[in-house]
């Protein structure tokens, strides 16, 4: 009986802990958004975050997209050949990238690069009392650190996704024309004919959601980092893991919302 009670108690503790964490993150998100409507807004911090999160993530997102597009073309060609459907390569590459792989892989790459960097930066600020210093200098840390980063990521990641989509389609095009003997004009024609505006827009909306998640997780775990180097390390790890899991889970929910019949 004691073993069963202990087991149930452990499950209960885990569930309560998880619910409490979800509540804390929800409140953190609400507080962040509420600062949008209340001045001041730190434009310089926002601009800096846009460069750090958007511009400097471009190489990694771009390379991921190019190689994914190329690999996707090879896979779809090999799979399609089983039932004489090789011609679908351009359209499936385009749809697959814009709807799913572009936003998800882009989001995950940004999570690895940005959530970790934000959590480590803010976590270090926390343990070196820089967050306390901000407060004593009459500057709200949520306004100065969190809001600019979350807003910048929410706006920059959809643009990264759009650029990644284009580069991914280019990767597919290069492999299709160079390796799979498609005519350049035919490949582009098939890509454009079957791609709809909503394919691209839905991917960009997903990108905005993923950008919000990435920056929010980085800021949340950074702000709640415990003392010392180990605390900052744990915060960084937790931010990347939470951002990645939430990206995949929200991707499923958004796909249900956008594309279920």
């Amino acid at each position: 009986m004691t073993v069963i009670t202990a087991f149930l108690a452990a499950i209960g503790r885990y569930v309560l802990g998880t619910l409490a964490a979800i509540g804390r993150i929800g409140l953190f998100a609400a507080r962040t958004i509420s600062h949008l409507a209340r001045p001041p807004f730190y434009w310089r911090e926002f601009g800096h975050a846009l460069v750090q999160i958007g511009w400097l993530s471009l190489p990694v997102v771009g390379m991921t997209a190019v190689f994914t597009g190329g690999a996707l073309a090879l896979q779809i060609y090999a799979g399609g050949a089983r039932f004489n459907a090789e011609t679908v390569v351009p359209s499936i590459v385009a749809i697959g990238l814009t709807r799913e792989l572009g936003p998800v892989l882009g989001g995950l790459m940004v999570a690895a690069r940005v959530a970790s960097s934000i959590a480590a930066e803010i976590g270090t600020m926390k343990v070196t009392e820089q967050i306390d210093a901000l407060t004593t200098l009459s500057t709200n840390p949520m306004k100065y650190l969190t809001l600019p980063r979350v807003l910048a990521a929410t706006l920059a990641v959809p643009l990264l996704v759009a650029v990644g989509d284009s580069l991914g389609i280019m990767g597919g095009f290069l492999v299709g024309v160079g390796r799979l003997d498609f005519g350049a004009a035919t490949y582009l024609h098939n890509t454009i004919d079957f791609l709809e505006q909503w394919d691209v827009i839905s991917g960009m909306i997903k990108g905005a959601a993923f950008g919000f998640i990435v920056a929010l997780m980085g800021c949340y775990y950074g702000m709640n980092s415990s003392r010392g180097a180990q605390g900052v390390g744990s915060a960084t790890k937790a931010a990347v893991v939470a951002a990645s899991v939430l990206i995949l889970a929200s991707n499923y929910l958004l796909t249900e919302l956008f594309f279920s019949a």
Partner: protein
Amino acid sequence: MIELTDVHKAFGNNHVLRGVNLTVESGTSMVIIGGSGTGKSVALKSILGLVTPDSGKITLDGKDVTTGDRDAFLARFGMLFQGGALFDSLPVWQNVAFRLLRGSLARPREEAREVAIEKLRRVGLKPDVADKFPAELSGGMQKRVGLARAIAAEPEIIFFDEPTTGLDPIMAGVINDLIREIVVEMGATAMTITHDMTSVRAIADNIAMLHDGVIKWTGPVADMDNSGDPYLDQFIHGRAEGPIEAVR
């Protein structure tokens, strides 16, 4: 005047403050001494609202610090943090002029830079330090930049958290002299927490000994050596034997 009345604060089972009562008169320099982990920093941070007390009352000039305009309240304070707490991503002059570049005290950028350079000069740093980043400075220089930042907006009240920790004796002496000079020159109210008895004698008008979550003794620094309080005596003479357990 800053007044703490029966202030309690616990972190889980760790009851750090167990009813702190302390009065700091305007224009005086109060130094809080006590062993590591006795709640000195928590007491200081409670006044600023960085830590929320579980119970008790803290007032500034008779007004509860938790009520009223928080920005206006914080604008009256400057604080030198133990490690400097300088913002790594900003050059030194922007650290010093941080308050003057944004918010209610904002000034034009050039004017803020001039004030920063003037404050750096006041703490004995040359203008060429202004464009360096904190990571390029020694520990003593970082403390001085932190001090320049604390006084940049000419606050009425300045808090110093372990101002000489980690510094060599000469640099500690320089910082102590600077603190004393600046506090006298500005007519500011100062609260300092430290373990360093040389600092205490250099900076304090009054001292308060915090132990076991309460103020064990408070009075003028001149009375410190003849207080007759066993806790204070043990602490100021650094004895291993006495009412304060050496292993905590």
